[in-house]
């Protein structure tokens, strides 16, 4: 989320996720079964008191949407970022 500040050369980001924070129930399926383990559960809480996932290692995300297939609460999904320009 906010740790992308470093001025290092940009890596080719292939995928990203969208998280509907308030719908998450913190089960951790997405974090555990993400193939490159790009997600972590946030230390913060949503309104219901669960820890939603954050894409800590965006550079590792392939946009495979396995997190979306696993999420029992339809709170996350992954997309492939098409290279534009």
């Amino acid at each position: 989320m906010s740790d992308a500040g470093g001025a290092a050369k940009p890596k080719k980001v292939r995928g990203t996720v969208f998280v509907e924070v308030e719908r998450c129930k913190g089960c951790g399926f997405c974090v555990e079964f993400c193939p490159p383990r790009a997600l972590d559960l946030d230390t913060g809480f949503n309104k219901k008191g669960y820890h939603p996932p954050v894409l800590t290692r965006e550079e590792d995300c392939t946009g495979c949407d396995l997190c979306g297939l696993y999420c029992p609460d339809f709170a996350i999904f992954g997309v492939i970022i098409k290279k534009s320009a």
Partner: protein
Amino acid sequence: MTEVAINPVNPYLRMDRMPSIWCPGCGIGTSVNCFARALTQSKIDLKKTAVVSGIGCTGRVSGYMSVDSFHTTHGRALAFATGLKLGNPELNVVVYSGEGDLIAIGGNHFIHAARRNLDVLCVCVNNFTYGMTGGQVSPTSPATAKFTTAPLGQFEEPFNLPYLADSCGAVYVARWTTFHVRELTKAMRDALKKRGFRFIEVISPCPTLYQRRNRLGDGLDAMKYYQEKSVKKNGANTSELRIDFQSEITVGTFVDRERPTFADAMNARYKEVLGPRYVPCPDNYVPPQAKGEGT
């Protein structure tokens, strides 16, 4: 680009009913993701698709899906589905319910729907217990596991559901767990394209009742158990698929065969006896796309 991205499951859900009632780490929602993708991939006509459930946590699926759906009385999903299919043979009818609903109170409907080869897809989410009513023994509860109604450990012989479905005549029988999301999606897609009684068992966590009462941790622990202890055996003999407490779980596609459906058999018999006077029941709807290439 990504601003407009929407979750691929959203078009299949009644968003006004979200969040679901399901507990954190319950597997039912995961199976719904697979089902939604299977609906897209099979290219069946959603306007001619109906989802029928009985009562239970899994029974909620019909109410959450934005296709025509029918939340019936406990145990009677297959009975209602029988009427729905015979009254409107063009419908793709999917029954989606728990093992308590389908196999305990609904067991009689189950064996006869399979015997008749009724043209419906039956998805059974098996969490080894009655979730909605507080964790009682169900027909698949493994021996020695503890339940509200068996605090000293369950001692009955559990049903092996693929064996039951196979012996009653189902034309497609598979079992996956909610860990096997890709395989489950494919099984649902394949089954949606077939005719006749198709049965998919989905082993799924119930962290609130089954896991907790048996000190098996949460939903994620159940998923890791499935990951570690599942063995893929396509074509396995269904009599060997028994599940014991925390035992190995055999997963795969076990049966894939053809047999006349209820409507086929009725048409054949009456044509034979009544000749041209007989007006046949319309042929069961086979999606035109399904005849072509597989996705």
